[in-house]
């Protein structure tokens, strides 16, 4: 009987979010020539349009979960895990669009392409979340990355943007090459690119372990670049510092969460049978990433750079959860990424607001006295910083708590102790921002701060509510994560 290659309607429903976002992005690109104008803030028609399409995609991903299963010959799979990450990256997209509107108006930049690129990037991440197959993973990664490269250099007259985009592009492509090379090795040794088939093949144990381990290592290197894990983290600070602030917010959360989704899915399912081979590597990388990120962050004087190193450190915490290699570990990683998404987007939104035109004010010292000039914004940034430190009643705390709980469950006592000590070190540099905001007298930089625009306020307050909600009532998200976690 010939195989029927025509997808069923249920399968179309399962990729509906990607379809919606692709169509919306394409539409924006087409209409840009007609309606495009400088200063594409919230007045631009593309702002509500991209928001609506994101909300539609969000609903579509929830609807798709109503009928979970594989799509397109097992290329994609819609399960709880995929849905969690789809909702996460699309939610991040919504917050990013809100925080970009002010920025685009301020920089007097065209809006259409920007929103379209964000949508495309999310399409890629959404595919990554649902990919069940190495080629699909590669395609998703490329869609997401290429859009991100352009976003990082969106203000093309700004040399910092250019540097950022070029660096991101070169190192990113390099990483993708590693990944692709690993995929080739895997295909060569197991004869499949489907994660389930690879797992089955590895369970049989006929494949030479050295070959497969090398492949796993190559794939890990490629993904480690994307999540900015040590020793492949060096691109992150430069890219994060140079890119427009709302883009940095987006980059530090969306692509990273999607890359973690892949990492967890590939290593928990496909490479599950050869755990002993890769676990020590991840252990070491997790520790190195936390330590490098935290200690380098201490020395930073630019807040975007500081948050870049902090995001490296946080990738290290999530890797601890991956090292735990259990259902609880991946649930903890999912929860952590959600909490981190709210926290970091919020923190960067305040930075976006404060930096003003041309991103003049991004020094940590520029924040002096913000608490007296804009107490509400300072209070919100404090919530985000406390969440990054991991103080109770914030999402960041519960994230850390679940991660280290999972790690202790997996008997990773040393990694837990060192990770917790790391988080105490991290308190130092986050506190520095609080010190400057609250304890110093206002300087020149915090004079004449215009009130924040409505969309930006929505991002800031929305993220703060999210951060606190995950800190006070974490059960709801965690229960879903535990149910959906891969084990």
């Amino acid at each position: 009987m010939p195989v029927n290659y025509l997808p069923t309607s249920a399968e179309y429903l399962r990729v509906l979010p990607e379809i919606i976002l692709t169509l919306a992005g394409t539409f924006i690109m087409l209409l840009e020539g007609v309606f495009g104008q400088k200063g594409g803030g919230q007045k631009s028609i593309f702002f509500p349009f991209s928001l609506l399409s994101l909300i539609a995609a969000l609903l579509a991903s929830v609807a798709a979960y109503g009928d979970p299963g594989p799509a397109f010959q097992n290329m994609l799979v819609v399960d709880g895990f995929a849905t969690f990450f789809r909702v996460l990256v699309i939610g991040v997209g919504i917050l990013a669009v809100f925080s970009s509107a002010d920025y685009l108006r301020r920089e007097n930049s065209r809006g259409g392409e920007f929103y379209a690129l964000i949508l495309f990037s999310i399409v890629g991440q959404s595919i990554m979340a649902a990919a069940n197959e190495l080629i699909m993973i590669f395609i998703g990664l490329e869609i997401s990355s290429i859009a991100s490269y352009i976003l990082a250099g969106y203000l093309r007259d700004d040399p910092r943007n250019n540097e950022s985009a070029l660096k991101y592009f070169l190192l990113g492509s390099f990483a993708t090459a590693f990944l692709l090379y690993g995929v080739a090795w895997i295909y060569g040794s197991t004869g499949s690119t489907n994660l389930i088939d690879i797992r089955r093949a590895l369970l049989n144990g006929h494949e030479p372990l050295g070959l497969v381990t090398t492949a796993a290592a190559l794939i890990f290197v490629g993904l480690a670049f994307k999540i900015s894990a040590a020793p492949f983290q060096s691109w992150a600070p430069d890219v994060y510092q140079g890119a427009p602030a709302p883009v940095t917010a987006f980059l530090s959360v969306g692509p990273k969460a999607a890359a973690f989704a892949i990492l967890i899915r590939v290593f928990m399912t496909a490479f599950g049978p050869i755990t002993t081979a890769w676990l020590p590597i991840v252990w070491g990388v997790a520790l190195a990433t936390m330590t490098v990120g935290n200690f380098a962050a201490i020395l930073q004087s630019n807040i975007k750079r500081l948050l870049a190193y902090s995001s490296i450190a946080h990738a290290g915490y999530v890797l601890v959860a991956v090292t735990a290699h259990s259902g609880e570990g991946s649930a903890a990683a999912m929860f952590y990424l959600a909490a981190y998404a709210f926290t970091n987007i919020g923190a960067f939104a305040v930075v976006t607001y404060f930096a003003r035109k041309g991103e003049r004010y991004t020094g940590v010292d520029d924040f002096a006295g913000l608490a007296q000039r804009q107490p509400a914004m300072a209070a919100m940034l404090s919530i985000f910083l406390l969440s990054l430190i991991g103080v109770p009643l914030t999402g960041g705390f519960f994230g850390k708590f679940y991660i280290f709980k999972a790690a202790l469950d997996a008997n990773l006592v040393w990694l837990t102790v060192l990770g917790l000590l790391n988080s105490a070190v991290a308190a130092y540099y986050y506190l520095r921002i609080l010190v400057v905001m609250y304890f110093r007298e206002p300087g020149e930089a915090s004079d004449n701060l215009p009130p924040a625009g409505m969309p930006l306020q929505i991002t800031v307050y929305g993220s703060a509510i999210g951060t606190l909600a995950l800190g006070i009532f974490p059960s709801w998200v965690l229960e879903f994560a535990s149910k959906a976690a891969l084990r």
Partner: protein
Amino acid sequence: MTLLDTVLFLPLVGFFLLLLVPRNNPQASRMTALLVSVFVFAASLGLIAPYWFAAPTGWQFEHNAPWISYPPIRYHVAIDGLSLWLVLLSTLLTPIAVLVSWKHIDHRVKEFFAFLILLEFGLIGVFVSLDLFLFYVFWEVSLVPMYFLVGVWGHERRIYAAVKFFLYTMAGSVLMLAAIIYLYNKSGTFDYSAILSQLQTGRLAFDARTQLLLFLAFFGAFAIKVPLFPLHTWLPDAHVEAPTAGSLMLASVMLKMGTYGLVRYCLPLFPESAHDSAPWIAALAIIGIIYGALVALVQPNMKKLVAYSSVSHLGFVVLGIFSFTQQGLDGAVYQMLNHGISTGALFMLVGYMYERRHSLEIAAYGGVATPAPNLAVVFLITTLASIGLPMLNNFVGEYLVLQGTAQANFTWVVFAALGVILSACYMLWLYQRAFYGKASESLSHHMSDLTPREWAAIIPLLVLMVWMGTFTQTFLPPISSQNAQILQQSQPAARVALNAR
């Protein structure tokens, strides 16, 4: 909803009320803070009711409700004879701290009182939590407002002091968090009573090394907070730089979080390790007693002097706890309250003097008794209380500690008693230099006597000094009966016998 819930959450309500008060009306913030804190204190008096005619052991005003479904974290709060007075100490000192800051704090008034009231919420929470996780949450939550109180409204080196305070405490508490998670993984619950009963029935048991590590993780967090020598270095900085209300809350209540933790968690949960490490800890406590006193002796700065005297006094508390005797433990708990009252009063009085003279150096004073006789009398009473004069509160505590310690190990007492003598030296010498002699012209000009508001703030503490020194029966029975239970729980031999049965 029990009375305890009301007492716990009223400050949080007050915090949000304060946020609503308009920024440009500082008087309204002050009034709101005062009303809220007085109201909380009035409500907390009701907590004494079960202890008025009896001295029951076990939990009172217990409320146990689910908070987070998985892992099972519960909102489980209650008080017993140990926490009762510490809760009351917190609720009493908060309105006093508000009064003390009335004029002293003149910029960003609203935020100051908001943080102060938030601090009260955290402190009460620490003393009433019976869920280890909840306890940790409050432990950390209380850290944040104190950090801001020191950092924004402190003196010159406030930022250094605030950051040091935060990092020290944070470093200690992350290890405690690891231990809490480990306990959960082994026992399946965060509930204090449940873990305790699992330990006692032998369902949960650790080998000696694991127990020691767990004990040390908890002990480290508490020892930093107490602070025990050699982890005390954050304390003088924080105290000297903090505003008066900050020093008051820090010394009187916050340090007690550490000693409370030792009694509540370290002793019953890890009795074998606690007994094994007792000589080492006692040695550190004794070093702290003598070292703190000696350093206090040579301090030219009044606040620093009082801060080092705290190190010395809290050494007594730790010594009493690790004597594992009824008297020692009773004395330790009593001494926690005493120290809160008399050292709190000292910090207030030093604050009063600072407001007048704008200096903390002893050398800037001299002859204060002439222009401000009432201040001098009040300071004298407080000084005498602090050095343990009979009929005043500290005497009772120190005596009980020394008596209990003597039963455990007589050598310890010999050294610890040195601290009592030294405390008389540094306090009386301070008094002599600051209050006696001839007042200079400018000093007389600045040193006005106590105002009615200042009287109102200090009188409750003076009354308590005498009351607690003469009529211990009001306070001691609930402490004693609860301590007897804790001692029984922390007898390693008792558990062995129980297991054998």
